[in-house]
Structure formats: C-alpha cells, structure tokens
C-alpha cells in the first residue's frame, strides 16, 4: 500500500515551486514511499513529555545592538541579478497575490 500518491507528490511540488516531469513524479512517488516507510518507525517511539531539541547547545537571547553597518554597493547587489532595470530586479508579471 502506497503511503504517498502521485497526486500528493504533484501537490507538494507545486507548494515548493518545482516543475516536475511525469517521469520524475513516478520516480519520486516510489522513492518517497520507501523513505516514508522508514520514517514511520519514528511513530513507534514514546516521546510523551519529551522536549524537542533544536540545537546542540541551547543558546538564549542572542541579540544585536541597533548599530547600522554598511550595506553592499548597489552595483554588487545588482550584479548577480538575471535581469535588472532602474536599479531594481526585474521579474515577469505576477499572477498571485501570494503563495
């Protein structure tokens, strides 16, 4: 029994802004299935009352003083851009308001 369908993979790809081919969909669905099967073993672990860990050494209140630092020169900022105009990054027309 498959835990992740082709349609589900297609939906995830859309969320992640990935255009995937039909071949990739088939391959990923199969491969993800194997991986997710292994992930399921995690569900067996009793983690009642266990706090999550996000870092090796817990660090607290790492804050910066509000002192300005130099920004990058604009030439350097725009140099990497695939398409720029009027000191800005040009992008094709936008469909969505968001996501």
């Amino acid at each position, binding site marked *: 029994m498959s835990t992740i369908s082709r349609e589900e993979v297609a939906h995830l790809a859309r969320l992640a802004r990935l255009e995937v081919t039909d071949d990739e969909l088939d391959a990923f669905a199969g491969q993800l299935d194997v991986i997710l099967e292994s992930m399921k073993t995690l569900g067996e672990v009793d983690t009642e009352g266990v706090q999550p860990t996000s870092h090796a050494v817990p660090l607290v209140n790492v804050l910066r003083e509000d002192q300005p*630092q130099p*920004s990058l020169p604009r030439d350097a900022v725009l140099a*990497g851009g695939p398409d720029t105009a009027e000191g800005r990054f040009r992008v094709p027309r936008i469909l969505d308001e968001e*996501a």
Partner: protein
Amino acid sequence: MTKLNTYEAAVAAYEPVLGLETHIELDTNTKMFCGCSTTFGAEPNTQVCPVCLALPGALPVANKAAVEATIKIGLALNCRIAEWTRFARKNYFYPDMPKNFQTSQYEEPLCEDGYVEVTVDGESYRVEIERVHLEEDTGKTLHVGGATGRIHGATESLVDYNRAGIPLVEIVTRPVPGTGALAPEVARAYTAELRDIVRSLGVSDVRMEQGSLRCDVNLSLNKSGDEWGTRTETKNVNSLRSVERAVRYEIRRQSALLDAGDKIHQETRHFHEATGETSPGRSKEEATDYRYFPEPDLAVMEPGREWVEELRASLPEPPRQRRERLQAEWGLGDKEMQSVVNADAVDLIAATIAAGASASGAVKWWLGELSRRANESGAELGSLAITPAQVAELQGMVDDGRLNDKLARQVIDGVLAGEGGPAAVAAARGLEVVSDTGALEAAVDEAIAANPDVAEKIRGGKHAAAGALIGAVMKATKGQADAGTVRQIILDKLS
C-alpha cells in the same frame, strides 16, 4: 455588479463581528536581522546586504531594539510578556520576500492576552488583543506595463529590497462582537487608539500614508443569537477613514449576499480607496500551507522579568489617561475634546501650550484656522508647515495687540508659504497693527470729513453708526488698525 444593502437595513438584520490585524513598522536604526539602515526613501536597493537580500549563506541576528520595542507595545496593550519565545519561518513564495519565507513568530509570540479601551459615542468598548508578535517586512514591488500601476494588467514588475527586513510588529485582536451599528466607528477608534499608543512609545512614526501602519480588517455577520458567520479579510486598508469605510462596505455587501441565501467565502479581499469598495483576491487553487517551523538560525528568547519591568517603568502615560488629564487642564467639554482628538490635534495643542500659549488660544488656532487650511489642502494637521512654537508665537502677538485676527491669518499665509516665523513674516509683509494714534487720528478725521451725515448721527447719540466710520478707517489703514482703538477715537471726537 455587486449587490449592496443599505447600511441601516444591514445592521438591523445582522450583527457584525470585527477583527483587526495591524502591522506596524518599527523605526529602529537598523533592520530586524541585519545592520542595514532603515531610512525611508533611499535609492532602490542601496540599503541591502547579504542577509536581507537572502544571498546564499547569509544568517540573521535579531535586533535588540526591535525586541524591546515589541515588549513595550505589548506592555502598553496590557499584554502578558512571554517567558520563552522564538521565531518561526512562514514559508511561501513571493518575489518581494527574498528568502521566500518570512521570519515571523507562530505558536510562541512575544506578547499575548491584552486589551485596548476605546470610546465611541460615549460608550466604552474593550477590544481584546490576542497576540503581538515580531516579524520582518517585505520589499516593494513596482508593477509596470499596466494602466494603473497595479498588479492586474502589468507586464512585468520591478523589485526594490530596501524595505525587506525592516522590523514589523503584528497586533492581532480577538473577534470583537457586540458593536452593532457602531462597528465601523469602533474599528476606526481602535486603530486610532492603537496608533496613539504606539506613537506615545516613540517606537514607530505610525504614518498610515507612508505604510508604517497597515490594517487588515476581518468581518463576519450573523443573525442575532446565531453562531458567528464566515469572515472575510480585507487587506491593506491604509487610513482611518478607509478602516471605517471598509467595515461599512463589507457589512452592506455580506448582508445582501446572506439575504439572497448565498454563502460568504472565507477569502482575502482588497480595498479600493477611490471607490470605497472591496474586491476578491485571486481565488487560490489550493489552501495556503505556510509550513511553519521554528527558525533554526536564531536562538530562543527568554525575556527576563527584570528586563520586562525595566521596560514597563520606562512607559509614558497612556494616551487615554493623558487625554483625560489634558481635557481637565484645558477646561474643554467632552464634545470639544472629541473634536481635538478627531482632528489629531492633542499633541499639537499640548506642544503649543508648552511653548507659552494659553489653552484657549492654542485650541482656537488648531481647531479653527489651521484645521480649515489642512482640509483645504487635503493634508494632515500635523503635516502643515507650521510648528506649535510658531502658533504660540502668533498667539502671543495677538495677545500683545500687535496683530488682530485678520492680520494673524495673513501671517499664517506667510508661515505656510515658508517665509519664516510669525515675527519675520509680520515684519516682511508689514503686517503690524497701527498703534500710532497720530496716524489713526488723521485717518479718523479724514473719515469724518468724508461722511458728514454719519458723523452727525453719532453726535446725535447713535453710537452704532460708528461701524461705518470704523470700516472706512480700516480700509484706509489696510486692516492694520485695531478696531477697538479706532472706535474709541471716533467716539471721543464726536461726543
């Protein structure tokens, strides 16, 4: 064509439930997670660095001043400050968001469970605050090729990341039921109160027209006694008046739909300043899934109680309390004070009084002549090119008899035109009251000679006739005479 009910019919049939989400840009020196400057209006893409441009490898470090400002806002809104809080990533793609996720807060906001008291028509409402959290702003997108500079019809867009990463505080209310027909006014009053509170803290300039305070308005309707209805979220409502109009419009629109037996869609809508209408955002193929998770690049925060109490001790007098105090000090009635508040003139008047003017003088200028000027030019009162100190100076000149009201208005013309302070304008334009009695007596003699019949009437005891002679003298002196003095001279000469 959208069907609308009349507002009266709508609120007679349905109960509105309000909700407000407000974004406030903090005016820290630097951005939320990097040292780039936040100055408004810089050349595009000149205030960016590897961090706020999301270059590969760059990492965030949180701005202490922004965290403190958020805690102050939370305290001023009567919130509980979290003992343990952290940032989370909100994942979605949009070109003005460089990382394609926004560093925000999710389940553990900095501040929770507060409230704001507002008064509308003498009635008090408590708007409960669910949460206050800290996040970062996006860049700005310029849509080109379309007719209106809007996203629809544009052929391409240009992105400037100067604003990307500026600290943003989001303040979310709990649903506000029970406001009835006053929902639009309550929404406006809440927003105004919030703005005043934040401004009093000195952590943001809260300029709605510059986008440093932005509102999203949630609204649903239900029949009395029913469960709350489905809500819509109207985005980017950017003036106090628009907040009111957006609520009013949604009440009229939703009630018409409900009357027709239609369902309200839970959706995002856009407000149009020009028409006062809302329109739906592009319907989404699939529900948005932000895939929130704790930001692994930042440490958690545990605001110590000592730190929080230090910040609490630094809070200024709350605006509402201050208003009540000032109203008493200025000797204003409720209505008059309400006009002061509506005109956004509390701080201006207070500053004018502090600069030496009497309360009545300060109120008179700001609510009268200056409000009129602001209305004429469509500007905010506070953005007029005259300072409270200058208004105090002007009133001082009137009190000293150097200016009369008419001359004072001409002085204001000069000040607003950038010609200098009141004394300088009066001198340059020659706008002083003529107090040289010799010159006035000559002008009176001339007027008597020119109007023998009027003079005769006055001699006969009809003092009211003096007005005609006063008018003639004022005309002759181009309004620079003091009318009372002129009258006295006339009566002295003709009795």
